[in-house]
């Protein structure tokens, strides 16, 4: 306590167990395609990682700034379309430039939307996300000449992934895109964790806790809410770039309100405010979706039941499971 540079609640030093688990998990994921070779699972896990990144970006928005977005998938979609259009029409081989364009374009769209949204709050903010999201969905759906409308974006080339002159493989190869996704998502995860634990992250938390008081300690609430919104949209746009490279296709349904609710469910399944919980939630959601849809066309009903069960009996999501069990054992 005499040490005036420590902050209570933040332990210093490393936790060997935690680090070991992370290394084993990453190693396991990294080696998986070489051990299994099962194309189906390689694709499934790729999708889980991409949606995990999207869910994590929503967790940043909801869990750290307290802003609810019903259609965060719109920003994945916009980015995916832009990256796809860039590769189709401008340069089929400039992968990095395409991704960069997608992220910048999405940010440019998200900025004015966020500017409007942070001037409202709570439910009005949430409803505006829905309004903007549906607007984007309709534009993509109806603008046949550019987006392909209902048919989606066709004729995506498969660019090579090259870094500093090294060719790391082709995005058409499921194993390559799997590893590429793993690397990018891992980097995004650790960067986001870093940001959340920074002085900037502390400001977001204060705003989430009590917006009014935050402004009365001298925080420009609107500006920081907008920055939090931009962070969430940029992460979603990175997920969008990965999505189109992995699928080689995107259709308007990816940007629908239904898909938006799905992303929200992923976050709630995993539990708010932990970042990694979003990945667990996304993995569970996609697995359930995939597993049940092989047995019944109406997989949404079963998913709905799972979500209702979780909301009623495990409102803190998967992340809160440990706490729940502890309390249960104590009686």
């Amino acid at each position: 306590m005499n040490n005036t540079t420590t902050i209570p609640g933040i332990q210093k030093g490393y936790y060997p167990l935690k680090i070991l688990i992370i290394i084993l998990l990453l190693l396991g994921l990294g080696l998986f395609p070489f051990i299994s070779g099962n194309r189906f699972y390689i694709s499934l896990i790729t999708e889980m990682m991409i949606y995990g990144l999207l869910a994590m970006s929503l967790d940043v928005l909801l869990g750290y700034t307290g802003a609810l977005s019903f259609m965060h998938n719109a920003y994945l979609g916009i980015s995916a379309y832009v990256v796809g259009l860039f590769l189709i029409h401008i340069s089929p081989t400039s992968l990095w430039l395409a991704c960069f364009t997608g992220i910048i374009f999405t940010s440019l769209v998200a900025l004015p939307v966020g500017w409007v949204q942070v001037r409202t709050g709570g439910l009005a903010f949430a409803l505006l996300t829905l309004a903007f999201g549906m607007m984007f969905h309709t534009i993509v759906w109806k603008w046949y000449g550019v987006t392909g409308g209902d048919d989606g974006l066709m004729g995506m080339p498969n660019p090579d992934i090259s870094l500093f002159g090294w060719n790391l493989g082709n995005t058409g190869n499921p194993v390559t895109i799997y590893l590429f996704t793993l690397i990018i998502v891992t980097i995004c995860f650790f960067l986001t964790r870093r940001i959340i634990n920074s002085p900037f992250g502390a400001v977001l938390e204060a705003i989430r806790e009590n917006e009014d008081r935050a402004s009365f300690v001298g925080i420009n609430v609107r500006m920081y809410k907008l920055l939090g919104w931009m962070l969430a949209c940029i992460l979603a746009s990175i997920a969008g770039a990965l999505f189109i490279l992995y699928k080689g296709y995107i259709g308007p349904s990816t940007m629908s309100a239904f898909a938006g609710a799905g992303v929200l469910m992923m976050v709630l399944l995993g539990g708010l405010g932990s970042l990694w919980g979003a990945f667990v939630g996304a993995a569970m959601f996609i697995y359930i979706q995939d597993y049940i849809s092989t047995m019944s066309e109406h997989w949404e009903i079963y998913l709905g039941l799972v979500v209702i069960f979780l909301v009623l009996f495990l409102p803190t999501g998967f992340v809160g499971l440990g706490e729940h069990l502890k309390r249960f054992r104590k009686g």
Partner: protein
Amino acid sequence: MVELLCTENLCRSFGGVMATNRVCFSVDNQGLTSIIGPNGAGKTTFINIVTGKIGASSGKIFFKGKEITNKPTHELVKMGICRTFQINSIFENLSVFENLRIARQAKDGGSLRIFSSKQSLKTVTEKTWDLVERLGLKDLAARPAKNLAYGDQRVLEVAIAMAGDPEILFLDEPTAGMSPTETRQISKLIKGLANEICVVLVEHDMDLVMSISDRITVLQYGCTIAEGTPEEIRNNEQVREAYLGKEE
């Protein structure tokens, strides 16, 4: 000499009701000024206007000779105008330490650092510890604010405002709901503060107001009906009427 803060004919109406009516108020660099008046007199509304929570309908506010009417709250706080709330407004799920640390960080800057740790803001952490020790909150530092006893939350409410190093501090009924012991504790804190900065206190406890105020302003129906030293206010006919009238 220019006053630290003054208002000129400050008005604010809510649907025709003048909650603040042509209030001219001024305070100097330090000392304790109390604002008293019956419930609904417009005391909180006055603080709300001056601290930027709500806009003024008309009139002007000056801080160190510069006009600050209708400036956004966060800018006023940065200039040194802080406040507490009549009803606790704290960061409930954050630790006591973090409640104060974030206020300090907002004052000192560094909030745009996105890739460094909170600990990297060393002076912020050190100054927060200073404040924690000064207020005797050391044992509670790691606790979530919502788990504190009401009296301690009330102290935290004041502490958060103090963490921003204000030049003028508005305290809206800081002793509301406190026991006599806790009231004595917090009045000691307020007296100490008034030796360093300008404190404006809204308070119902007359004994407390009379004993610690340097000057007192009395509001009724949004208007200033009296202004002066505790002695002058005690003997003011109009003030007596206002208070006696209420007791009937």
